[in-house]
């Protein structure tokens, strides 16, 4: 039995060194050397290109800030919690949940108030809670709102969305998407 224990302990320690630290640290080194932008979170001037932001503004009375395109309604963007990194994740409400029903109703009402007929993505929360993307259709339906608030002509906004539409990768992997941050950065330049 002692032989088994000694072997187990030694092998476990060696594997922790090789598979945990040698692999993890070598990987970090290679990643930082080859892809330092991606490895550090794809941080651009206005935030991470891969992490969705809250475009609603902080006012509790103003539900939607009409001068920006909005992403998924990821509630109280969890990354904002008290300056400490919060938990990512979804709301986990079932398809027959009264809470989901009420939340979606409230969102539909808020969108209608700013003259937008929302698509599915604009009233449902994402899996990560930080989805950075919307579909081109999700952006197009917001044009009346954004155009009215910013004074930019709808045709220019349509061209903007077309320019910012990416993918799907290799023509079939995933869906065509518009990155909300990139779209709003481009919008800011127009104004």
């Amino acid at each position: 039995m002692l032989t088994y224990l000694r072997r187990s302990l030694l092998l476990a320690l060696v594997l922790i060194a090789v598979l945990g630290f040698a692999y993890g640290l070598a990987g970090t080194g290679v990643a930082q050397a080859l892809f330092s932008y991606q490895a550090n979170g794809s941080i651009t001037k206005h935030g991470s290109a891969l992490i969705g932001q809250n475009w609603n503004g902080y006012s509790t009375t103003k539900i939607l800030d009409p001068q920006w395109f909005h992403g998924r309604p990821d509630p109280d963007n969890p990354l904002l919690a008290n300056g400490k990194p919060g938990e990512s994740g979804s709301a986990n409400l079932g398809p027959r949940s009264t809470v989901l029903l009420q939340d979606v109703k409230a969102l539909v009402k808020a969108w209608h108030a700013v003259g937008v007929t929302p698509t599915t993505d604009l009233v449902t929360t994402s899996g990560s809670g930080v989805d950075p993307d919307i579909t081109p259709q999700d952006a197009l339906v917001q044009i009346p709102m954004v155009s009215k608030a910013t004074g930019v002509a709808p045709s220019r906004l349509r061209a903007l969305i077309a320019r910012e539409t990416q993918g799907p990768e290799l023509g079939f992997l995933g869906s065509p998407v518009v990155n909300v941050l990139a779209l709003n950065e481009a919008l800011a330049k127009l104004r």
Partner: protein
Amino acid sequence: MDFAWTIVALVVLMAVAWRFLGAYMVAVYETRVHFLGFIERPIYRLIGTAPDREQTWKRYATSLLVFSAVFLLLDYLIFRIQGSLPLDPQHLGAVPPALSWNTAVSFLTNTNWQNYAGETTMSYFSQMGALMVQQFVSAAVGIAVAVALIRGFARKGSATIGNFWVDTVRGCLYVLLPIAFVFGIVFVGQGAVQTLSGPAHIKDALNGVTQTIALGPVGFMEVIKELGTNGGGFFNANGAHPFENPTGLTNLFSMALILCIPVALTYVFGKMVGALRQGVAVLAAMTIIFGAWTAFTAYAEHQPNPAVAAAGVVHQPTGNMEGKEVRFGDTQSALYDVTSTQTSTGSVDGSNDSYTPIGGFGLLTGMMLGEVSPGGVGSGLYTILLFAIIAVFIGGLMIGRTPEYLGKKIQAREVKLAGFAILVMPITVLVLTGIAVSIHAGRAGPLNAGPHGFTEILYAFTSQANNNGSAFAGLTGNHAFYNVTGGIAMLMGRFAIIVPTLALAGALGAKNLVPESAGTFRTDNTMFVGLLIGVILIVGGLTFFPAVSLGPIVEQLSHGKFFGVSMAHLTALAHWRLFP
């Protein structure tokens, strides 16, 4: 159409993995590959073993159990003292005892059930030195057991089934490590983060938003999480998080990494028993089940979400998008989650809890069939071979001959061992679910009320007893009751199946071959594939149909009805409410 092309791409990748990774793995386990000998040989010297020192099944099993127990203790210690260890830029402090226990068991058993949110609980030291290490080791141990069982079929009159230490070390070094390293670079290139510095703080001048963005050594862990069919992600959101699974391409690679070893093992099986057709028959049964489940789950997720429709958005051309990411869409999310629940992975790229009732049924029942299509690394193959033994036994009864499989007589001992190993999982799931719904501590867990809440509990035990680790994540598992019972389910689902499997390997290896005759029941033709699928579906169906009827089936039939949220969760949920 995009979905069809994704399937085509996946099939092509799997064909390559089956033929070439399979052949490579045969060479690895027949100790014909040596390019990492400079690491491998010192390890053997240190622990005092060698590839030619083979073990009986009893010694093999003892080594496995002692090694697992020691590693369990080490990981528990690391979680408890992580506050005093380096690589903790967020000063997270020690993980509480019950949670440390549950997590150590979870990663040891290849389950990766997570009662914690990685980014706010585990230091970088724990993530790399405990969790990621187990993602390699538990996978290598799983493959070792499968290879030992294959040796049992392949050898005749042999007292030994291989050397546990050598099989485990070779699996880690030659199979998992190189593939993980290469794909780790690809994932980071696509956008996965890989850094040891703490969170990034950002103030966006456009909208005045301040953000704290959690970072960490994610990309390289992500790859071994998929490759070892582990499923435990760095972030709470798992494969839905853009830093874990940034693009459609990484989503495809994730699925390919999950499936490649289980699929390649059917080649290893065929090759080592000297008849590739036998491996193809097993792979065919796996593929048919996988295809059927993918088809109806993806179809279900392409349907509208009932709550969203009732709230006024009736037209939902993009399917059920609640809890899903835009870059993946409905059907490719469903494909990923089916891949993850038909193996022992359990990673998710969307919220399983928000699936339509039939979509959720697809994920739940994928696990209930025992995860054999193609199943976890190693565990998929050895579990389907247990079913194959039951299938030849039933076939033998029908034609009135002593059953044989691959020239080995299947006698009372073998059928008893296989039967026992197959029944461990359903009994564990049903008994623990029964207890949970009967006592207050168990009923306090689920978030959603009504049949969906029952599904959350049933899903939790099914997932843990199958070492899957995915969750209907509305269930709050981080309480004493679920931490303890979940730990039991995971240990049963792992070791109460591995030990009889190794006993079976020993019993088969000691037997001599029976010469094939005209009366031999063939196990490499369509009829056997059909019989094998039938046995898997009947065992799973008969065992779980009553329980499933109370969950997803009732929910699907509740047209126009909506259910509230369990009271215990109202406070927790306030955080998630969109408007106060």
